[in-house]
């Protein structure tokens, strides 16, 4: 009984900490820019794949024992850069249009999913060549003063032209260096990250196994939360981010470079997604759809937590994680065994997928009392 409860709480917290890690970046980005990043899950997936690649690269070297730390850094950097590109390339054109941003980032997530399925040297070459040709041409032409007028024509001509050139080159190279050049990097299959030796297994307390990997994730989450908190509250850029979160126009007037703040925040949020992906890769195999499994739950964390404070996300993530676990496992069924109808009800919901049904109902019920989440954004700007 006790061990069951202990196990339930531990697993719940560890589930919650994964959720929190995943939701942290999302919540910051949403709080600052009102942007729901549907590609957040895919950024996590990128982080997980980065971990996988770091692991493969370091296999057999003395660094392998601590590869996970290198992977964390690599995952953060890769996804942060990706986030930066995403923000500069797409999202900044869509500020103030949250629903459109949502759709656009969904498009990005589709592209990323397919990217890991079909990425090969060939594809990389094609994309790189296309960018080179297209943006090179743009760079040359854009210096002319009448560029804006001819923009449509430029796009209509240059896009097919560069695409054709890039694809043709890629195909030629592909036939020349057949197997190596066209070989898919990952394939559509899932890949496995093997945790380093010291993260395998766990230690038993009161008959429950506390897995090291999960403890590592909990510690990582705490570190990230503390780090983000410190960054937001004790650094000049953190101050700027908070200022823009509260009043964008005013901040801009006071000379805060809001564009830079936006880009930085987005990169930070994406980097956190990368860390989350790295953590997730320790829990099971990683596939192109990995991100999708987390995305809805992390959104729920943001909805329940509200965008006012970091604490909201923390409480919400732990609550949702624990609730999911307690309902989904048999813990509640056992606990309520004496009361037959109650335990029967819980038994009906006691699978992972059915638990989500009940948790969603609870969330909707919660929103009836606190529509703005635990810590709603206050002030006049809301629902003016």
């Amino acid at each position, binding site marked *: 009984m006790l061990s069951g409860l202990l196990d339930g709480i531990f697993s719940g917290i560890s589930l919650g900490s994964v959720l929190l890690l995943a939701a942290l970046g999302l919540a910051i980005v949403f709080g600052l820019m009102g942007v729901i990043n549907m590609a957040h899950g895919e950024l996590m997936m990128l982080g997980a794949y980065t971990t996988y690649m770091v692991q493969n690269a370091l296999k057999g070297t003395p660094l392998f024992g601590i590869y996970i730390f290198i992977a964390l850094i690599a995952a953060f950097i890769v996804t942060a850069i990706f986030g930066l590109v995403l923000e500069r390339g797409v999202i900044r054109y869509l500020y103030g249009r949250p629903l459109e941003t949502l759709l656009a980032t969904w498009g*990005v997530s589709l592209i990323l999913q397919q990217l890991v399925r079909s990425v090969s040297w060939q594809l990389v070459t094609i994309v790189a060549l296309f960018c080179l040709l297209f943006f090179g041409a743009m760079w040359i032409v854009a210096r002319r003063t009448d560029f804006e007028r001819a923009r449509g024509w430029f796009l209509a001509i240059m896009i097919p032209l560069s695409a054709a050139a890039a694809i043709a080159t890629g195909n030629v190279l592909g036939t020349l260096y057949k197997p190596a050049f066209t070989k898919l990097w990952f394939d559509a299959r899932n890949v496995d990250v093997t945790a380093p030796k010291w993260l395998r297994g766990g230690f038993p307390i009161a008959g429950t196994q506390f897995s090291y990997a999960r403890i590592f994730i909990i510690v990582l989450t705490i570190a990230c939360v503390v780090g983000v908190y410190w960054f937001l509250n004790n650094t000049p850029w953190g101050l700027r981010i908070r200022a823009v979160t509260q009043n964008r126009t005013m901040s801009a007037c006071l000379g805060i470079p809001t564009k830079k703040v936006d880009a930085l925040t987005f990169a930070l949020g994406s980097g956190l997604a990368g860390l989350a992906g790295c953590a997730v890769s320790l829990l099971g195999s990683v596939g192109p759809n990995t991100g999708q499994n987390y995305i809805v739950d992390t959104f729920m964390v943001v909805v329940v937590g509200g965008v006012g404070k970091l604490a909201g996300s923390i409480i919400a993530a732990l609550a949702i994680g624990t609730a999911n676990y307690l309902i989904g496992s048999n813990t509640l069924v056992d606990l309520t065994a004496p009361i037959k109808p109650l335990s029967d009800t819980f038994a009906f919901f006691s699978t992972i997928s059915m638990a989500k049904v009940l948790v969603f109902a609870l969330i909707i019920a919660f929103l009836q009392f606190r529509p703005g989440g635990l810590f709603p954004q206050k002030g006049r700007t809301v629902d003016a």
Partner: protein
Amino acid sequence: MDALIQSKSKARQRLLIEAGIVAAIALLLLFVIPPILVGSGQGFRVNLLGRYLALAIAALGIDLIWGFTGILSLGQGVFFALGGYSLAMFLLLQLPDGQLPDFFSPYGVTELPWLWQPFYSLPFTLFAIVFIPTIVAATLGYLVFRNRIRGVYFSILTQAALIVFFNFFNGQQKLINGTNGLKTDTATIFGQTVSSPPVQAFLYTLTILLLVGGYALSRWLTSGRSGRLLVAVRDDEARMRFSGYDPTMFKVLVFAISAGLAGIAGALYTVQSGIITPQAMNIAFSIEMVIWVAVGGRATIVGAILGTLIVNFAKSILSERFPQFWYFFQGGLFLIVVTVLPGGILGWLREDGVRLVRSQINKRRPLQTYPSLEEDPGVQYERKNLANRESDG
């Protein structure tokens, strides 16, 4: 008053023209296109066309809530599936007395679950196809809108609802065959198998008729006072309250209507594709529906239908040839439509297309002056006088 009457008769005239065009297109779809496709050896595309026209009904619903009212639902798949399952359950029960649908036996179910009982009746099924989704949407919508939860929050919640329904349907094997879904193509109706040509031809016709019905409904809803109220909800819902309107009710209403349309679409799609599975409720499909509308053009009802057909045929052709590129293409489509083509195809045609054509045939649009200048009696007077003086001198 004269002006009023005149504009009224003009409006009626326009309505007649529109009805004529719709009828002509419907007839074209009914009697001309199928023989052409069959004649050119592309007979299977008739079935595809039928399915896509069914999807277009769901797209109409999305146009109503997203295009006009500005509510983005990412959970239309729920309603689609509810409609599809309702009809599938009815079809699977078309058996001799006492028999159960086949899929029950591996699970050891020997008695028909109570959930299935009402679906023996055709009237109930028809009712269920439209009103189960409607009621589910109205309930969810009321609970959410009432608390003034909106924008992306609403979108996320509908997506969560989608996942919840997906999980529920996926997990209930003994009830509705879980992941495998319900197959309708071998079921019989009125003594014919559902996949037989006459039944399919009937369904094709029915789809077109219902699509026309859906079009008429959408047109009616978005014209006149209700249409303006929908736009008002999109523009400034809080302001409406201070004029005495309760936006919650309007939002619940359109959301429910869009769900009903999705239900009809789901039922028609199911019987034409032969199966309904929980996959109808995966996240991607529901978002895809939004992009059909976006491609065609938001808040243009024809755009929803057009967009659905274009995107889906592109999908069927592209994914036949290069399956892996479809996703790139689709992802790119989302990006392009949102960033460079926010008005969709129809929006572009209206704005830039006209201008482009004009400039090509060298007929620049006459520069418009400030409107009040044209009507200002003082200016008119001066112009006349100036002209007079010129002719004088």
